[in-house]
């Protein structure tokens, strides 16, 4: 590789890195808001963002993997040994090439890393920024049950009923060991543990049923620690909520929003 | 194997030694098995039995090892000092997480000291510090005398160092005992947990250091000294001394 071409390649790589950095800084840094400062805006569903980013990352790593694998396979075929005493004929690299072959790939990889970080961070923002009008449910986990407490005091066990169309935020803690509230369908989990309060939120749009499973090893019956998220149409939910409150002898405070 | 191998082996003398195996078995029975018998399966008798096997094995192993190796085997001649440097790096990183845990617990605590704590004595730790620092100086002096070729002087100052180290340990025991009587034990609260774990960890290092010195003193009585070993041992002792500054400042005076 001639010197000039090397420098051109280097500067291209540098540019790519820089643009990755700038993207990270510009779009993400300015948008990153800690949980406390909720900005009202249209609810963006992190689950959809997950599927999108997952797909992008899969394409990204598949390309990288295939490039390396094909190159290796080609070399294996092209340079297979033809006679017993044949030896390889690679020459030592010049100083320029040593540096070039280290820095250029490094910058290309770094550019990809920053690109991925930027996207990951953006999505992470969605995951951590709870929409304002969420239904807030308290969760206390224990070996081996999920105990939910609604704003009006209604309690349920292993069954979280929520209205369709309203985001739900769980404030979680644990009575004994660490557990992890995992709802595969909403692409979200977060640990709950004694002595700390953690949170997660998700956005149930359509009525339906979803599995909740424990995703942190918590003892012998870890695999038997599961429940359901039941998403109900708004009116049905309200009716259930009220009936349940009456049943559990709770003075009804008006529902959330 | 070929003739060559035998001739060769004869020249250098293959090192065959039972002591590493003996020490390993000793460690296994003395600590893990004994601990488990006592604390997990609540069988103190078996625990004592297990230690009764392990402790003699360890002592035998160390004595045998020192006797074999004190003349210095050709390979490690002179490298012991550098190796001790690597080992001290590892040792420092045993203490660091202990301190880190203590700092996290302390800095995130609502009120400190937590309920159940007692007023930490101030005088005793100061005396202990003086004792330990002087022992660092005496071992330095012993080393210097050894360099100058005086084995007798080396012996004297080494013995002084050991005396100081022993004094330090006895004072720790006194100190612990005193705290126990005030109702401050390892399971009182997070502070006591950190306090006894860290001072205990440090004390065990003093103990090991004394063991190393014993391994120098006994052959030195017969006039045999391995200089690399002495330099490494004294480096270790200085390290134990420095760690004490952290322990004492964090535990007693903060």
């Amino acid at each position: 590789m001639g010197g000039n071409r090397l420098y051109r390649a280097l500067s291209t790589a540098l540019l790519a890195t820089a643009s990755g950095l700038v993207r990270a800084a510009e779009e993400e840094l300015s948008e990153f808001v800690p949980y406390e400062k909720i900005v009202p805006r249209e609810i963006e569903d992190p689950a959809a963002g997950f599927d999108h980013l997952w797909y992008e990352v899969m394409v990204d790593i598949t390309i990288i993997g295939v490039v390396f694998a094909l190159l290796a396979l080609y070399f294996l075929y092209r340079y297979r040994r033809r006679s017993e005493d044949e030896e390889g004929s690679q020459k030592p690299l010049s100083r320029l090439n040593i540096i070039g072959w280290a820095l250029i790939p490094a910058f290309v990889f770094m550019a990809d890393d920053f690109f991925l970080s930027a996207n990951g961070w953006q999505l992470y923002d969605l995951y951590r920024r709870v929409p304002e009008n969420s239904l807030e449910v308290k969760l206390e986990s224990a070996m081996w049950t999920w105990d939910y407490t609604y704003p009006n005091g209604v309690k349920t066990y292993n069954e979280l009923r929520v209205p369709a169309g309203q985001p739900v935020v769980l404030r979680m803690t644990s009575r004994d060991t660490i557990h992890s509230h995992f709802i595969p369908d909403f692409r979200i989990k977060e640990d709950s543990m004694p002595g700390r309060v953690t949170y997660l939120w998700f956005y149930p749009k359509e009525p339906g049923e979803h599995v909740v499973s424990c995703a942190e090893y918590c003892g012998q019956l870890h695999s038997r620690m599961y429940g359901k998220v039941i998403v109900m149409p708004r009116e049905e939910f309200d009716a259930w909520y009220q009936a349940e409150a009456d049943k559990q002898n709770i003075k009804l405070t008006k529902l959330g929003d | 194997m070929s003739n060559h191998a035998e001739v060769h082996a004869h020249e250098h003398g293959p090192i065959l030694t039972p002591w590493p195996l003996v020490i390993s078995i000793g460690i296994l029975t003395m600590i893990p098995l004994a601990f488990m018998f006592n604390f997990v399966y609540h069988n103190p008798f078996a625990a004592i039995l297990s230690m009764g096997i392990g402790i003699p094995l360890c002592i035998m192993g160390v004595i045998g090892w020192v006797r074999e190796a004190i003349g210095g085997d050709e390979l490690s001649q002179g490298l012991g000092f550098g190796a001790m440097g690597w080992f001290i790096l590892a040792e420092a990183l045993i203490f660091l997480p202990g301190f880190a845990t203590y700092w996290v617990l302390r800095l995130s605590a609502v009120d400190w000291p937590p309920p159940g704590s007692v007023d930490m004595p101030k005088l005793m730790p100061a005396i202990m510090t003086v004792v330990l620092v002087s022992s660092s100086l005496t071992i330095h002096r012993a080393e210097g005398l050894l360099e100058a070729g005086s084995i007798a002087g080396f012996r004297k100052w080494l013995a002084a160092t050991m005396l100081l180290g022993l004094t330090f340990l006895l004072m720790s025991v006194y100190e612990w005992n005193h705290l126990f009587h005030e109702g401050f034990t390892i399971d009182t609260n997070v502070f006591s947990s950190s306090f006894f774990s860290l001072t205990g960890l440090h004390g065990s290092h003093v103990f090991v250091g004394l063991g190393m010195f014993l391994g120098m003193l006994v052959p030195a009585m017969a006039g045999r000294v391995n200089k690399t070993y002495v330099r490494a041992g004294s480096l270790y002792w200085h390290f134990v001394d420095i760690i004490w500054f952290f322990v004492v400042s964090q535990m007693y005076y903060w």
Partner: protein
Amino acid sequence: MSTLKEWIFTTDHKKVGLLYLIGSLAAFAVAGMSALMMRAELTSMGPTITDNPGDYNTWLYFHGAAMILGFQIPALTGFLANYLVPLQIGAKDVAFPRINALSVWLFYMGIILALLTFVVPDPPDVMWTGYPPYSTITFGNTALYTFTVLLLGFASILGGVNFLTTIAFMRAPGLGWNKLNMFTWCTFAAFILQLIFVPVLGTAVTLISLDKYLGTHFFDPSTGGDVLIYQNLFWFYSHPAVYVILLPFIGIVFDIIATFARNRIFNYKAAVYGGIGGIVLLAGEVWVHHLYVTGMPDWIRVGQMVTTLLISIPVGLLFISLVGTLYKGSISFETPMLYALAVVFLMLIGGLTGIPLAIVSLTLHVSDTYYIPGHFHYVMAVAGTFAIFGGIYYLFPKFSGRMYNEFLGKLGFWITFVGVNVIFFPMMIVGVVVGMPRRYWDYSQFPAAEPYHHWMTAGAGMIAIGFTIVLANWIYGLVAGPKAPGNPWGSRSLEWTTTSPPLDHGNWEEVPKIEEGWGPYEYGTGKA
């Protein structure tokens, strides 16, 4: 043959290495059997071969702990390092042969403790991660876990002190740092990591036993303790530990590939200083990627997402050198080479599937699902084991003076190679697509996972057959293999210039002299 006494009282680095090999393969076999039991249990939903979840948890505990601490780390930094490093640097032995013997016997004591799992009442059931508060309240024997880790860790620290000193000070005259074999470099780096990080693990596991048995309160929130401290300490070691595995196995793969391609390492300096050096520098700053779904503060999760992704740069440089070494080579495909090449492909899959894991928002879904075992079995279990097996085949003529059977070698390789993909690829799919969590004895709530589990169990059966062939081949080679030539692969590297097997004590008649133009990878220069 040497007498039994010469084996158990030995301080010779080659014998110590082989002792490490025997011990670690024993751990591998037992941990592999536990894996087969687990696979049998998971074949169908609900209880299959045991209706006691405790059995499953014990198998899984033993499998994870023994495979990492009892098999891979000792096989790589015990067997391969002991056998190869002194030979590759032209030394007569390691710096402290007696301490070396102490290391290997402490390792055996650790293995004995680990195996007690199957003997004692209330075996440990804390998984290889041992998270409190569960590990401090379980009826299981957490002390056994603590002491197993402590003994194996202590053996590692002593090994580290020994090898760092050996490599730094005992190289043959004229053997500069830039002429070291890749494997020696990688061992050097791995032991630096061990020395820095093992003590942290030791402290962490000690604290849980103190909490459980002596009543301290480090991890007990009701009295001011904090459960997350342990996880931070644990992963502060256990992430670097994966590079303690990765580095030596990539190192041996480099040596094998250079030998069988009879070629120089492509961009040796970038691989050593950028690749290995970069990994050592970054290894300690990424542990939080194992705590993405705990309550860690957001800023640190995002920060360590970036550092974790940056690890792809040094590893990528190593890959460029690996693939580049094939360029203009003269490649032949004996069994060790097949294993080494397979490592490149499997490690590509395993490493690249770590990339989505590093991205914090994606981990929120896949963490603690079967995607994770999928990722790490590829990158560690399979790539690491293949590198170890390749290394054993590569050194087979060296340490036994005999040849294994080439046909059986290739047969065993292909069966296991297909088998591992059949078991570990579906694992990743079932993790993301179905959301099947790991460490489950029963997965009745995920019926969609069952077909995948059929495949995985079938794959595990294939691996068992494949490994049986491999084992049979080695036994055949040891007992009845044809005599091996001194340098069957035509390697230029120092370890092949001595006799096979090398002299019992001291390796060489005379310590080799390193000439000006010599290097372990100087092929194609005409000189033989």
